[in-house]
Each structure stands twice: as structure tokens, then as C-alpha cells.
């Protein structure tokens, strides 16, 4: 009995290995993905946002503003255009993201405690830039405003300590939990890499049934008396084993070499990934049993695998999607997986919270395998009758 199972598994490994395209995808797809994404996000944070200052005043007071802006954490002064027209062109070309215009007579007006207005322009066409840039600008303008306000109050005869209290008696502290350095690489690189991995797994599992019943050797298998169940279980064992072998180097590089956060520890992440691998394999099996040929099976699988990352709410939150759409998103196993990966790597909320993720992925796997069996049953019946 075990000899037959071993032979089926060996045959399946040989099939996967000889399918050159699939072999390359499985061996290198997710690893290359991880390295590529790690390279793209190697800068990790959006600091040093290119900033231009148009200093129309050129006074000591305007120099102070420039110094404060230079000392700002996230802004980097890259150029000093002569006028607004030049600044506009730089922003249009995308060479600077933030533009500051210090008006004429700025120093004089500040000295005379007259009102003056500093112009700030932010290029909003890239949200990743714009959100960070506006936060940086708001922070620096608050501190500059407080400094000038205090000196104005002192000039008006208010005691220095009172002037200080007026502006600085409430301090605001901000903390980014789970990702204290707001590192973009921590947020996205692993997620993108496992997204590639799940796409590769979908491609492989979409060959499960059609890879057998779509070739003439199917007749030989049927006539050899090998049980369909044994064939299916042995093939699936090889597939899921290959999926897990594929993800191991990705996780090793991510957690041990790149030091991405892993709050839950190795056993939990591997067990969760294993559960998802089974569920994904079951979904691919449905596609492979329903499709008329291998190309259609691959297409059907990828129709779900491709948009699943966006649907999962890993980047744009599920809570911000339309109310009626949110429950639908949870029908995709990938939503449970990507959400679960986020919780496990960053937060580790504990078994009492995570058990439902394991449970639902397991239930989905049972459901999908059952549907696949129903599709395949028709073929089996046909052969029995034949």
C-alpha cells in the first residue's frame, strides 16, 4: 500500500520537476519577489522629502525659518528657486514635493508684530509623499509658530515663563505601535512576497486534476486500479509539501536576515501558513476540476489570486470599503491569510483571537475539496460506466 503511495508521490515530483515553467516559478518566483521588493523598499522610510524654499525676504528672520525647516526630521531642502514660477515648474516636474514661499518684508512684519503669511505648497499627486509631507510641514510650522508667538508675547510685556506656558503647556507625544519606525519595508515587503508565493501555489494547484484527466495517461491510471482517493491524497501531499518548502527560504530571509518583525514566533506562522497552503490547494483543485483545459484552469485560479491582495484589505483597509462589500471580501481565503499574517507578524493577538482564522481556512478547505470531488465525480462515473 505504502509502496504504491510512494510511487505516486515520486511520479508527481517528477511531473512537477519536468514541467520547466512551473519548476522555475516554484523554485524562484517567491524568492525573487522577496529580493526585488526588499530592494525597492530598501530606503524603508519616506524621509528627506525634497523641499524648495523661495525666500523673497532674505532677512535674518527668514534665515531662521530656513534653519528650522532644515532641522526638520523629514524635509530636505534641495533648492532655492528665485520665484514662485520656478517653484511651480519644479513641482510640476516632480523634482520637489514641498514648496515654501517666505514673503517679502517677512522679517520686518515679524519685528513689528504685523501679520504675515508663509505659503506652503505640497504636491498631492502621490499620496505616500503627500501624507508624510503634510505631517512634516504641520509639525515644523507649529514649532515655528510657537517660537514667534512666544517672542511676540515677550515683546508685548508678558513674562517669559507665561509666554512659554501659553504655547507649550500641553505636550503631544506620538507613538507608532507595532512598527515604531514606521518602516514601509516591514509593512509591505513580506506581504508582497507571500502574495507572489500564493500566486505561484495557485498556478501549481490549478494543475492538480486537469494535469491528470487532461492527458492520455489518465486512461492508464484508471485501468491500473489505483484508487482515485489515493491518487488525490498522494498528489496533494506532494503539492502542499512543495508549497511549504517554497515559503521556508522566504520566511528565513525575511525574519532572520532582513529582521522583519515576527511577533508570534516560528511555530505559529508556519502552522498558519500550512493551514492556508491546504486551503489554497483546495481552491486550485476546484479550478482544475472545473476547467476544460490547463490554460482555463490557470486563468480561473488567477482571476481570484490576482486581485485577492487588494481585496484582502492589507493595504487599503477593509473598514474603508463599502459596507456591503466587506462581508464578501471574507469569502476569499486570501483575506483571512493576509489579515492573519499581519496580526501574527506585528501583533500576536493570541490563540483566542487567531483560532477563528485557522478554523475558517480549514472549513474552506473542506468545502473546496468537496466541490472539487463533485466536479471530478462526474468524470469518475463516466469512466465506471464506460
Amino acid at each position, binding site marked *: 500500500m505504502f509502496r504504491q503511495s510512494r510511487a505516486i508521490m515520486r511520479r508527481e515530483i517528477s511531473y512537477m520537476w519536468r514541467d520547466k515553467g*512551473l519548476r522555475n516559478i516554484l523554485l524562484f518566483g517567491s524568492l525573487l*519577489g522577496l529580493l526585488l521588493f526588499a530592494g525597492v523598499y530598501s530606503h524603508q522610510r519616506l524621509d528627506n522629502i*525634497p523641499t524648495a524654499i523661495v525666500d523673497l525676504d532674505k532677512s535674518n528672520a527668514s534665515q531662521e525659518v530656513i534653519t528650522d525647516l532644515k532641522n526638520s526630521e523629514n524635509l530636505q531642502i534641495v533648492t532655492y528657486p528665485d520665484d514662485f514660477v520656478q517653484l511651480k515648474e519644479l513641482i510640476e516636474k516632480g523634482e520637489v514635493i514641498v514648496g515654501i514661499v517666505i514673503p517679502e518684508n517677512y522679517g520686518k512684519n515679524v519685528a513689528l508684530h504685523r501679520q504675515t503669511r508663509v505659503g*506652503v*505648497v505640497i504636491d498631492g499627486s*502621490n499620496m505616500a509623499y503627500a501624507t508624510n509631507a503634510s505631517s512634516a510641514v504641520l509639525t515644523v510650522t507649529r514649532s515655528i*509658530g510657537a517660537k514667534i508667538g512666544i517672542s511676540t508675547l515677550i515683546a508685548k510685556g508678558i513674562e517669559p515663563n507665561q509666554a512659554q506656558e501659553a504655547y507649550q503647556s*500641553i505636550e503631544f507625544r506620538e507613538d507608532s505601535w507595532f512598527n515604531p519606525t514606521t518602516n514601509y519595508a516591514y509593512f509591505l515587503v513580506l506581504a508582497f512576497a507571500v502574495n507572489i508565493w500564493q500566486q505561484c501555489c495557485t498556478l501549481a494547484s490549478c494543475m492538480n486534476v486537469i494535469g491528470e*484527466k487532461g492527458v492520455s495517461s489518465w486512461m492508464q491510471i484508471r485501468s491500473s486500479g489505483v484508487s482515485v482517493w489515493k491518487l488525490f491524497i498522494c498528489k496533494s501531499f506532494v503539492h502542499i509539501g512543495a508549497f511549504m518548502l517554497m515559503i521556508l527560504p522566504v520566511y528565513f530571509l525575511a525574519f532572520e536576515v532582513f529582521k522583519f518583525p515576527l511577533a508570534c514566533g516560528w511555530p505559529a506562522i508556519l502552522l498558519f501558513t500550512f493551514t492556508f497552503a491546504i486551503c489554497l490547494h483546495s481552491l486550485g483543485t476546484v479550478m482544475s476540476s472545473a476547467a476544460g483545459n490547463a490554460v482555463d484552469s490557470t486563468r480561473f485560479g488567477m482571476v481570484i489570486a490576482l486581485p485577492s491582495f487588494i481585496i484582502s484589505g492589507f493595504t487599503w483597509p477593509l*473598514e474603508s470599503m463599502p459596507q456591503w462589500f466587506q462581508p464578501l471580501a471574507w469569502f476569499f481565503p486570501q483575506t483571512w491569510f493576509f489579515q492573519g499574517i499581519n496580526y501574527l507578524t506585528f501583533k500576536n493577538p493570541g490563540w483566542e483571537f487567531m483560532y477563528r482564522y485557522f478554523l475558517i481556512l480549514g472549513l474552506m478547505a473542506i468545502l473546496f475539496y468537496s466541490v472539487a470531488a463533485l466536479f471530478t465525480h462526474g468524470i469518475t462515473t463516466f469512466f465506471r460506466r464506460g
Partner: protein
Amino acid sequence: MKQIMTIAYYEAIHILKDKVLLLVVFIAPVLYAALFGMIYISGTLQHVPLGIVDLDHSTESRAVVSSFENTDNFKIISGVTSYEDLEKGMKNGTVRAGVVIPKDYSQKLSQHQLTQISTVYDGSNLIYGYNTRRYFITMLNTFSAEHTASYLAGLGMTKREITDVMDTVSYSMQVWYNPTYSYPTFIFIGMVVMILHQLGFLCIALTVTREKEKNTWIQFLCSAIPQWKIFIGKALPYFIAGFFNFSLLLWVAVRFINVKFSGSLVLILLLGLLFNIIITSSGFVVSLYAPNSLQVTRYLMLMSVPLFVISGYTWPGAYIPKLLNGLARLMPYTWMAEGIRYVTVKNLGVDYLVTIISVLALMAGGSSFLALTFSKRRKPFAQDRPTVNSTSLIPKKGF
């Protein structure tokens, strides 16, 4: 001309007969655009679930709470009364941001001592994280200003005097091109271009492999029809469908998803035309050399995420290493996505698009040349060992 039209006619018939291909050519682009559009329809990230831990329970601390209640940016989650509740909520995702008002907040305020309000946000999703941070800073700037005004009023200063002091230097902040921080305006057009890129490739790249699998490609190779006619005939239906989809998806983006769409229509159509030529011709070249439809489908499907990420459309190119930036510059998607953003979002004219249009034109010329002049010489298939799914035979029912 007749030969071209005949080839095009049979290709169109094939598209209409193959149900899955028909779906990929005409339905899938709209379906994906509608799906992504629905996901981003809310436009801006609002109602961030916020837990406020008010340890002071004073009039002053309630003022802080009500300032957060009176904004659409946050949605106060009830039941968060302690730091432990906040930690738990942040861990299980019911809360994405928190404010902690210390126990002695009002006392310290009345004694004019320094007090601290803590704000926390969930860094595990930086879309939440960065937006929440911006909302916090905006809120706290307003709150600080109110506090300063009331302090100065307490010193006996008149309203006018307070305004004079506080507005000595004011800042007028303008966010150009996307003042509402609309997420669809930022990302949706890039996704539309990716949908057109992937599905366009997927359709045309199967046109020759399919013929090879049916053993009919040999007829094209042996016939007296020149290469360029074969290419134009086979590519024409996909080119027309691609351009139709390009126009349709842009219309959907503007009409239903409320994506900002400004700039010259002529420029947009020119970009669409060049992009479509590149996709159609390079897809045809891929199809010429690919072993079968299965391999083409597999590799193409996997390309979408890497292409999108390295293009610099979301994570700016200035922060991507030069080598990867160079690689991205070889891809038509990078140029097209940048060009279409320049026109539709930034409303820039042709002066700013000279480089982009030149590169796309060069790519279109190069790929068209390769497609128009492909070799009709047959190469014998070298097969010295057993292979699976690597020849023109692919698994299908009714073998």
C-alpha cells in the same frame, strides 16, 4: 488588404467562439476596474476607529474628547476606558488609534504646568498609520491654538490682541493636484493601466501559441502571406479591443469612481495609442517564441505585482535603488503610468511629456519592428528527454 482583413476576421471569430477568451477581452477589464473602483470608492480614509482613554474625567479632558468626536476623521470606539483596553483593541484591530489623557491633566493645566497627551496609531498598516498621524497633527495644532487663545484671554488680552499675536505668522497650506487626498485619484488610474497591460498581453500572447497547439501555425508559416500581414491581421482585433477598453475604463474611472481627470484628451489618446501598440506587438512577439499558452499565461500572471511595485507609481522612484529604477525604465508600464498621471492628475502639457512620449514611441517602434519582421523559418523541436507542459501539447479534457 484583403488578406489582412481575412486573418483579422478569423481571429475575431475565434475570440467570439472561445467563451473564456471573450470574457478576458471584453468583460474582465471592466470587471476588474469595477472591483477595484468599489474597493476605493470611499475616496479618503475616514472614521479611523479611535479609543480615548480619559484618565482625568475633567471638563478640560472632556473638551479634548469632544474635539475628536466632532470630526469625521475619527470614530470613537466606546468601551475603551483603560490603557489595557486600548492595547487589547489595538491588538485585535477594533481600534486603530488611541489618545491617552493623563490623570492630572486638568490639575496641571490649572497650575500652568507642563502636561502630556499621548497619541498612538497602528503602524502595522501604514495607510492607517500615516493618515492617522496627519489627522492627529492637524487636530492637535487646532487644539494647541485653542489652548493658547484661552490662556491669553486669561491674561486679560482682548480677542483682537490674541488674534494679532497668534496670527503674526500664519501658514497657507495648499495641496496641489489632489487636495482631498483622494485615494482613487492617487492609485486608480495606475491600476487601470495595469489591468490593460496584463489583460491585453494575456489575449494577444496566446494568438500564436493557440495556432501552434492546433497545428495550424504551420499554415501561416508555409503560406505566401508576408509576416507583416500575418501580424497586422492577427493583432488588429486585439488592438481595437485594447483601445476600446482603454477608453471605456477611463470613462468608468471618471464617471463612477470620481477619479480626477484633467488635461488634454489628445495627449491621453496619444499615450493610449502608443501603449496599445507596444502591448499588441510585444505580446505577439512573446507568443511567437513561447512554447505554449499555459507557460505564457503562468508567467504573465505573475508579472503584475512586481511591475506595479518597481514602477515607482506608489513608492517614489527617488527612494528605489538605481539598478531597479533602471530595470523599471525598461518597462512600458512605468512610462505609461507616469505619463497618464502627469496628464490626468497634474494637468501637464506636452512640454512635460516629451521624454515619456519619445520613449513610448521608441518602444512602440522597436516592438512593432520585431513583430512585423518575424522569421518564418521553422526550427525543429529539440526533445532529448521527457518534458511536461513544455511543448505545444497542454492538458485538456477530451484529449
